[in-house]
């Protein structure tokens, strides 16, 4: 019975010229988005790889110098372009792409694409995500807005009912018929996207297959939610016109208006601190101590005492190790501590802000799938922070190595300019490498969005089984 209903929905829809046109347009858009997007992703990925290795080369070939000078010379970390980012560009245009890593200082991740573009960028990019999240639901609306009312107006609904079919059976037939049609468009394109994955960048992320599957599954879930919602609304709408207006209104509110309103609200509820405050607080806390009662002078004095005691000597000059190296590393570590403290604070504010949009997924499935998709594509805030942390850890590591070398090998009495290390030391620092978060951490980070989608699905199935029998037949 279900098969028969699905077949009929398929046939009638496939023979509808309006759906033929909009379906074809959508398919062409999808193909374009995937092809061009993938090309762009590959190009950017290669460019960043090249830049990363070129900058590492500079580090290796910086010539013989004092290790602390080298720490000042610094290194760069480039954010790799995640392989799945061509499906969902997410925040990529709005987050910085590289950071300069040097001694004493946590630099900002700079140069977002949006800053270098004109106002056009704010309209977004035609990616697969945009099509799947925003345009495909529109196709679903066009497929379903009169799926019941037309049959009601034409009288075929009576005939179907006369044949002994219950409204519940008919409802499910229409849901699955529409859903299969959506999958018919979605699956080939997503499969093609999978086959076209840039292998070179895919090799950077061993879990890319799992992420891809999860992404496809997330979207499949979203489409089912949307199909159920649309069929349910159209089943109870008085006529096709009302159903179309209602569904389009719903689409405009959930895809166009609510996302903006939500993120604006989030900024109001959890105000973003300013960069000025952020840097000033760090500076002050470094100077006066995290608790405000441990100024840097006294910290340094107690460190000196401790080191002198450790080596059993009276003065710095008598130390067998380089005092500056020790002091610098201690200062570095203290700054790191303060920085972590402040950075986590800001990060938490942003997380709270983003949580509002994740919670909003419970009232707007579009937001749920948007957050989930971004996350799996590796282009959400979580990934940005992961990169920032990885880069900062790398900075700490190599600065520490430089300081340690200075402490141990730059013997007291040797002038700064006379102690030099060379390539052997530079190559002992491996090039920056950043592993994308694994799927499990992504999913646990996105549990709200997943829960929201599941709840929508369960709720809609529940609603339809409760109310399908009450669908008016006349």
């Amino acid at each position, binding site marked *: 019975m279900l098969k028969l209903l699905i077949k009929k929905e398929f046939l009638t829809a496939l023979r509808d010229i309006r759906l033929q046109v909009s379906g074809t347009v959508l398919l062409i858009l999808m193909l374009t988005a995937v092809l061009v997007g993938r*090309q762009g992703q590959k190009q950017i990925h290669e460019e960043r790889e090249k830049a990363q290795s070129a900058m590492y080369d500079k580090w290796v070939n910086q010539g013989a110098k004092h290790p602390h000078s080298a720490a000042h010379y610094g290194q760069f970390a480039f954010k790799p372009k995640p392989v799945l980012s061509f499906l969902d560009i997410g*925040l990529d245009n709005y987050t910085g792409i590289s950071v*300069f890593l040097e001694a004493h200082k946590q630099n900002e991740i700079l140069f977002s694409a*949006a800053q*270098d573009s004109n106002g056009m960028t704010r309209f977004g990019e*035609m990616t697969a995500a945009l099509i799947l999240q925003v345009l495909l639901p529109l196709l679903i609306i066009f497929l379903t807005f009169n799926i019941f009312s037309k049959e009601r107006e034409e009288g075929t609904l009576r005939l179907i009912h006369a044949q002994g079919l219950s409204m519940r059976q008919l409802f499910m037939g229409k849901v699955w018929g529409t859903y299969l049609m959506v999958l018919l468009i979605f699956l080939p394109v997503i499969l093609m996207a999978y086959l076209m994955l840039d292998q070179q960048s895919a090799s950077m992320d061993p879990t890319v297959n799992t992420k891809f599957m999860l992404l496809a599954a997330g979207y499949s879930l979203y489409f089912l939610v949307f199909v159920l919602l649309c069929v349910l609304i159209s089943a109870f709408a008085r006529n096709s016109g009302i159903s*179309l207006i209602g569904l389009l209104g719903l689409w405009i509110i959930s895809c166009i208006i609510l996302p903006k309103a939500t993120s604006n609200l*989030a900024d109001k509820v959890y105000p973003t601190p300013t960069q000025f405050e952020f840097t000033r607080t760090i500076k002050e806390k470094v100077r006066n101590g995290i608790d405000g009662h441990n100024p840097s002078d006294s910290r340094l004095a107690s460190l000196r005492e401790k080191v002198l005691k450790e080596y059993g000597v009276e003065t710095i000059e008598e130390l067998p190790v380089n005092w500056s190296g020790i002091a610098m590393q201690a200062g570095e570590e203290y700054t790191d501590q303060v920085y972590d403290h402040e950075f986590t604070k800001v990060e938490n504010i*942003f997380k709270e802000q983003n949580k509002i949009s994740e919670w909003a997924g419970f009232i707007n499935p579009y937001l749920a799938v948007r957050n989930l998709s971004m996350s799996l594509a590796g282009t959400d805030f979580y990934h940005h922070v992961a990169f920032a942390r990885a880069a900062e850890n790398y900075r700490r590591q190599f600065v520490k190595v430089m300081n340690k070398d200075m402490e141990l090998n730059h013997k007291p009495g040797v002038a700064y300019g006379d102690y030099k290390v060379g390539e052997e030391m530079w190559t002992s620092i491996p090039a920056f490498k950043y592993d994308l978060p694994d799927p499990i951490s992504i999913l646990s980070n996105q549990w709200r969005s997943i829960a929201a989608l599941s709840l929508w699905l369960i709720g809609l199935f529940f609603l339809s089984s409760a109310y399908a029998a009450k669908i008016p037949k006349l």
Partner: protein
Amino acid sequence: MLVTLGAGIYGIYFGKFEIDKQNERIAFVKDYEREKFDSLLVWARLDTTITENKEKYEQAVSPQGVGYTLHFAYCIANQPAPTAGLCLGQRDLYPSYYRITMTDLSRQMNTGELANPMKLLTGNFDLSYVFVFLFPLLIIALFYNLYAGEKEGGTLSLLQSQSVPLRSILLSKALMRMLVVFGLAFLLLVLGFVLQGITLGDNSGLLFQWLVVVFGYCLVWMILMGAIVALRRSSALSAMLGFGLWLIFTLITPTLINLFVLANEPLPNRTTMIHELREESGKNWDNPKSYVLNQFYQEKPEFNDGDSIDFYKWYYASFAVLDLKAKDMKAGFEQQVNKRNTLLEKWMWLAPAAIVHNGLSKLSNTDSDSQKDFMREVEKNHTELKNIYYTRIFAKEQFSIQDLENIERRL
């Protein structure tokens, strides 16, 4: 219509909220820096016969002390234009102020404002957004059944039986709806101006420009809808056609253009600039002092006193030399960026929504060009600031109270 009105009022409110926040930040930082500088002025006026004061006084009047050791920074703000709150444009992407010292500018500009990228991505719900995205929807909703509504409601034959031609009846209906749209736009704009605290009297020209852009845009949509109505198709099809146009012009064309341009014209790698500057900075340190000073004197012959060994002269000249080199590099990047933006602009005609949004941003000085103007202003201020310092440093003089007051006036 009520929804549009509500959205418009929310947009005005939100834009005001954002701009007030930016103004607050700017005021806060300015006050902070001024306070710091005021204490410096107090030091400069101290009685130096008292020994404890001597050190403070010397720091305050030493160009090196003021400019570098004391970390005194000079805040240059991009004050929002009157209507910035109605169209936030690109403002949220850039810092609304820079704190600069007289060291090299190029590395000081590498800073941003803390912003949640998620918010940048979704964009601002300001009045311009309501005009660009929601107004066309309102127009579609008002116009789609202009003809079909009569036909489907069964009143068409009644209308046709009147002695007035159908065309003029429909035209007058369209005019009524047009008045409604224009009236609402006018109301929202005036409301926006008043609520943002923009005095209408002084800014009537600006209001007029806004009206021209917004009305023009609405008119384009009404003409499009008129053409759809003239096809005399069913109301459902007319609505779908209108909505399809809306999709194409506000969603599909801009994103498609972005897709092609962003994918095919990747941005230049600005990181190389940081790298090259560190190389240059290394050269400044590694070479004899004359390496820097000779370059500096060539550029600024007025400071050339033949001295090529003085540490302070070398130290400060090296910043100027760095900036000089950065300027060339930057020009190269700008050129590449411009090439891309010209490409975007070349195709922009396909996306009227983007054109209008850009136009409104221009009126509000919140577009990327205004940001570039601001950067030039920062540069100019930095140069002037540097001149005050360099005059004293190269003359090996201390700041006079006059100098400090001169600087203060710029704060």
